[in-house]
């Protein structure tokens, strides 16, 4: 049942994603991509399980590495997206 429920979420989210993204103008494709990329660092939330809830050494190391990679993805992704977006100015604010 759990699997069915999760698949249900998956299908709905995919449709939602299609709806959301197809409205984004070409100007913002790069920030959209890097912003979405930062969201994919959500794996971080899954990595804690392996890194911190077991005595198994191998799981700890793999989990710790996963935490590192995912954090790079999250922190780097959001910051770089913010840096890019801060450059997009409208005519009015560019004149200031």
């Amino acid at each position: 049942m759990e699997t069915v429920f999760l698949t249900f979420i998956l299908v709905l989210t995919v449709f939602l994603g299609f709806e959301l993204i197809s409205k984004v103008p070409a100007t913002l494709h790069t920030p959209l991509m890097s912003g979405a990329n930062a969201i994919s660092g959500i794996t971080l939330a899954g990595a804690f399980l392996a890194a911190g809830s077991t005595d198994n050494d191998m799981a700890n190391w793999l989990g710790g590495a996963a935490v590192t990679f995912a954090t790079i993805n999250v922190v780097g992704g959001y910051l770089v997206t913010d840096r890019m977006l801060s450059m997009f100015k409208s005519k009015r604010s560019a004149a200031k």
Partner: protein
Amino acid sequence: MIDLAANFAYILSAGLFIYGLKMLGSPATARKGNMLSSIGMLIAVVAALASDGTTFEFIIGGMIIGAAIGLLAARLVAMTSMPEMVALFNGSGGGASLLVGWATLYLSPDSSIGGFTAFTIALAILIGGLTSTGSLIAYGKLSEKLNSAAFVFSGQRFLNSLLLLAIIVCTYLFCMDPSPDSIYLYGLLGLALLLGVMAVIPIGGADMPVVISLLNSYSGIAACAAGFAINNNILIVAGSLVGASGIILTNIMCKAMNRSLANVLFSGFGAAKSGKAVEGEVNPVSVEDAYYILEAASNVCFVPGYGMAVAQAQHVVKELGQILEANGCEVSYAIHPVAGRMPGHMNVLLAEADVPYEQLVEMDDINPRIENVDVAIVIGANDVVNPSAREDEDSPIYGMPIINVDQARTVFVLKRSMASGFSGVDNPLFFGENTRMLFGDAKESISGVISEFGS
């Protein structure tokens, strides 16, 4: 109890991700949207820590190292290197999903892993691995550390088919008897990493926008698979949002080149060269004459391409645009969807140079009124303005929508020399009657025109 609280927190963060992505749809709200999405991430991470963490050495250690690397990378990267940076971040996310999938095997006592869970673990490993090495190769090609041309050899397809077959067999055998010691697990790991390499080497530099979008999508799908493996719904929601967004972008990029995804991925475009050779006289123009024409123009449109990024010419381009505007001229920047090395590459560079986003127009907006443009200035773009795409049925790029600069009253093409574009296709635009070639480094040429305005 704490699990329930964590799941409610996940719902909140999913809402923030969705709303954040929605706000990314307009330049005016995009920055706030990204902020909201990062708050969603923070909530999800804190909730996961509270519910899953019992020992924290590995978690804290990993987070400190990761945050330091991410922070430095995001601060230090030059805007022109953004495509390779995005590729690296993608790869990092893919790698994380692979590791989570792998580590999950050690979490449950032996023989309690079900067939479905094993399958999702295999998927997380496969897609995560493919994303990580694929992104590394893409990084190498984008940063020119590797040859950016398509790398094709005979027997490549046969080898790839074998690789896919081996992956299917390994996945099947691993799912039959899932255990952390299974040799098929290691086989799968190796094959997944190899697949990433094999998938990206036959793709040429000009097709990189497609590859980056696709890898972006994969990094989401990998997170999604990892979510299934550990039964975590926020991973599934966030992962599939990213997966869907990557697929949409991939589709937009493919349409902008009038090619199917399969064609981009497997044809090794840029290796094959055909199409009619074009002959004719080119009309070179001096910086001084270019100045006289621009001075009299009342509607100028810049058409940037990857060459503008290479020459780092975005700032002088904007300066010239401002001078022209002060001169009473209407200025716009027409950007083809696949100009540059990633979706929206040119937009970011021009935004960096403080060009207001109202002046950045899309191909479909400029084409209907291109005849009213007095001067179209092509800077480092080639294939996206090549009229062969419209006229020559034998041309490899036939059918690709282009910006019809040849229909503007005058076209300036800034070009280093007469070498053909990335796709190796001749460009009849250069021989057009209304075309003037401004040879030399794009940045220097434009600076030259600017100083003519000054004198």
